[in-house]
């Protein structure tokens, strides 16, 4: 494929500064050199190899430190205005390997809870960043509101069950929850970023170190995609955490979702863009009907167009979300009550579009799309896995109800 991806899948470049473009360019070079051009070498066990390669991305290139405040040795992009740049960078990571992007996105979204201006939590940053975000590539997993279990009445966050509860103790907080299904590399996580409720039903976020007494992990799950991201069920049995590990401010959970939707949207779009590259190359010399180029057949060309259309519109939508998060100044910045539903709406659409692009393109590629050799099926499984995780539970229904509450002031749904 001869064209530059950014010339095909355009985005509003005015939203992104030179620093971000430079960083994204470095990530693209890493992706091309370390991952994309060497995929055939990694036929066996490539998921794990890619994660090893990602250490260079996080440590040498510095993705690990990008959201860290400067005061903690970071690059200091802990401002909403950096959202478009973060999106651009995570698209490049996703283009190389969605698992790497997924793990990084979850860690960044968790860090945003405590470090993102204007809601940066100084005491929590002091307590957590030096141990979990500033050195040695520690893994973080999320535990979000989701499906409840019949017969177990649970506090709710916008209809979704919150399976973790906290209560105040003399030294801090006690955290309890059973058979929780995290999102992220829970089997290898050193820290959990957890949506929880107190006994009054007030929701907040609490951080739980995995080595704290009372934390137990199950066996690694076998899941559709993101196979190098080892997930597992987790239980908290009266786990004591320090007072500063709990984020008391209102809207903390709502504030997590825009970053998740943005960064994971970027990852899926990046994976879909790489699929576009593979498909474009593949369609260059495939023939049908005894000699005609496949891409010159009107029906096949329409399918190819579908693929490009889904990716292009998803990318434009994703930058709209970045713009919403960033605002253009304090006056233009939306309150979390508005950012949340818009991020859910756009985030859901992005994942649907990315998956549709893969599904449509695979229809043309036939068995080539299904064999591991072409790497298409991995993108397909990875995007689907991200989409299902972001749904949480109930497919698009809970998000539709979020939107109904926002757009129509529904009170009962």
């Amino acid at each position, binding site marked *: 494929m001869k064209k530059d991806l950014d010339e095909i899948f355009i985005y509003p470049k005015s939203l992104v500064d030179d620093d971000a473009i430079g960083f994204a360019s470095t990530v693209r070079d890493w992706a091309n050199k370390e991952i994309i051009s060497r995929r055939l070498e990694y036929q066996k066990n490539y998921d794990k190899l890619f994660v090893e390669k990602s250490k260079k991305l996080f440590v040498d290139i510095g993705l690990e430190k990008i959201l860290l405040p400067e005061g903690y040795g970071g690059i200091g992009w802990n401002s909403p205005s950096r959202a478009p740049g973060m999106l651009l960078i995570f698209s490049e990571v996703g283009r190389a390997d969605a698992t790497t992007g997924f793990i990084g996105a979850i860690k960044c979204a968790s860090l945003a809870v405590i470090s993102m201006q204007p809601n940066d939590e100084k005491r929590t940053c002091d307590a957590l960043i030096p141990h979990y975000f500033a050195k040695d590539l520690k893994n973080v997993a999320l535990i979000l509101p989701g499906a409840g279990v019949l017969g177990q009445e649970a506090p709710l966050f916008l209809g979704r069950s919150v399976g973790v509860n906290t209560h105040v103790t003399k030294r801090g907080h006690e955290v309890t929850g059973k058979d929780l299904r995290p999102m992220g590399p829970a089997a290898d996580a050193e820290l959990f970023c957890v949506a929880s409720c107190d006994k009054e039903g007030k929701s907040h976020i609490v951080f739980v170190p995995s080595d704290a007494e009372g934390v137990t992990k199950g066996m690694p799950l076998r899941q559709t995609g993101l196979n190098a991201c080892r997930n597992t069920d987790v239980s908290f049995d009266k786990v004591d955490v320090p007072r500063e590990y709990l984020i008391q401010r209102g809207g903390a959970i709502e504030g997590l979702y825009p970053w998740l939707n943005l960064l994971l949207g970027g990852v899926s779009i990046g994976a879909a863009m790489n699929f576009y590259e593979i498909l474009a190359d593949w369609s260059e010399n495939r023939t049908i009907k*005894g000699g005609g180029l496949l891409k010159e057949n009107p029906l096949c060309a329409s399918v190819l167009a579908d693929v490009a259309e889904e990716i292009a519109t998803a990318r434009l939508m994703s930058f709209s979300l970045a713009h919403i998060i960033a605002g253009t100044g304090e006056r233009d910045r939306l309150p979390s009550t508005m950012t949340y539903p818009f991020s859910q709406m756009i985030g859901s659409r992005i994942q649907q579009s990315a998956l549709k692009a893969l599904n449509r393109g695979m229809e043309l590629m036939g068995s080539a799309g299904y064999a591991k050799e072409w790497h298409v099926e991995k993108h397909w499984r990875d995007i689907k896995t991200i989409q299902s995780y972001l749904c949480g539970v*109930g497919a698009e229904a809970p998000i539709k109800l979020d939107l109904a509450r926002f757009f129509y002031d529904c009170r009962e749904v």
Partner: protein
Amino acid sequence: MKHFDEFSRPEEYVSPMMKHFRTVLRNLLEKEVMPYRREFDEDWDEHRIIKPIFDKIMGRNGLGFQRALFPEKLGGWGLGHSDYLGGIGYAMAEEMGRVDTGIAVAFLVTLWPLLTILVEPHVNWSLAREFAPMFCNSDKAVFCALCMTEPQGGADIENLELLRGRTIRTTARLEGNEWVINGHKLWPTNTGGVASLLAVPCTTSPGSDDPNDYALIFVPADTEGVTQGGAYEKAGMAADKNSDVWFEDVRVPSWYRAHGPGTDAQVFMGHIIPLGNVGSMGMLVGSMLNLYERLYEFVSTRTYQNRPLKENDAIAGIIGQIAGDIDICRIIGHEGAMIIDRRNKPYGKPLNSEEVIGKTRNMKYFVADRAVENFGRAMDVLGVYGVDREWDIEKHWRDIKMIQLWMGGKQLCQMEAARYFYNCNTL
């Protein structure tokens, strides 16, 4: 929970023989396959778990299904001359697809090429006698492969109606009383060292679009010059191995050709394509019946707003549509099977007619699209649990995508439908 058999099927299409096949097969599959299917993905190359299962389904010491098509007097069950061939084939596909579509396709593709020589009125008694002992007397599973796809052509081989074999590059040259075959095939089910008997579409005159030059020739897999590559690693369908197959000056007796000039093409279009479509639908519907079973459990035991998911109107809208689609797809699947079984009736159509091919292609395309969409949505209903193999839905989601892609895929189905319904002449 409603039993999955309460999904609609035209009761007048259900024969006593179909019921018997279903009962026997379901009992075995639930006991011998269902408990182990989550381990299949890791067994994709070695088939240590999978192979003994096939022996139980197909071999003489098990259910013996691999001899179903052969005439009774050769040790078979005579399904090849049954008026219920389509219905029973569909039922077998549905029962197996409910458990594992990889198992289903590996078994059904064994019967698939044999259809061309064992179904009335095109029984080739010489070949039937030749191959019957291989399938009817074996305690172990014995597999066939139908080697269609070639590197250059994608779905061209399946597009016989338009291209009439013009693009086939695998050649068959008659020397004395032997065919000499040369060529390269990709992706046949049951290759990678599995199949004992290969059926190979060839051309006797490269570049010709004369149906007389289309030859379907049977080749024992251990014939000198046949090389099967290693199994491809795929997204799913672990019970089905696929590989490259090379034919280098492969010699087989001249009477290993299915029938002869003209008839080979006619039988290929009439038996392979429509029955392939019906079998595909059976697998898809079967997998969706299992989707319903697993989804029912999840939406009944997990909650949103502290009530079962299924009691929320918005979620009920989603799962209601999924169940509705399954219901309709099952009716379509049975109707597709009945199109096959009407072939000898005054009101039926020949299997190689444009109508049968166009309609069954259209049906398969519709059911495959519904299945791909519904499995995807069901995974989203399960959310963070949807990608977990323990809930089985994600495995079906990976597996059934292949059914949408095979036999020329969605676009060829659309073309065949257009040809029939709009009298298109150049597609």
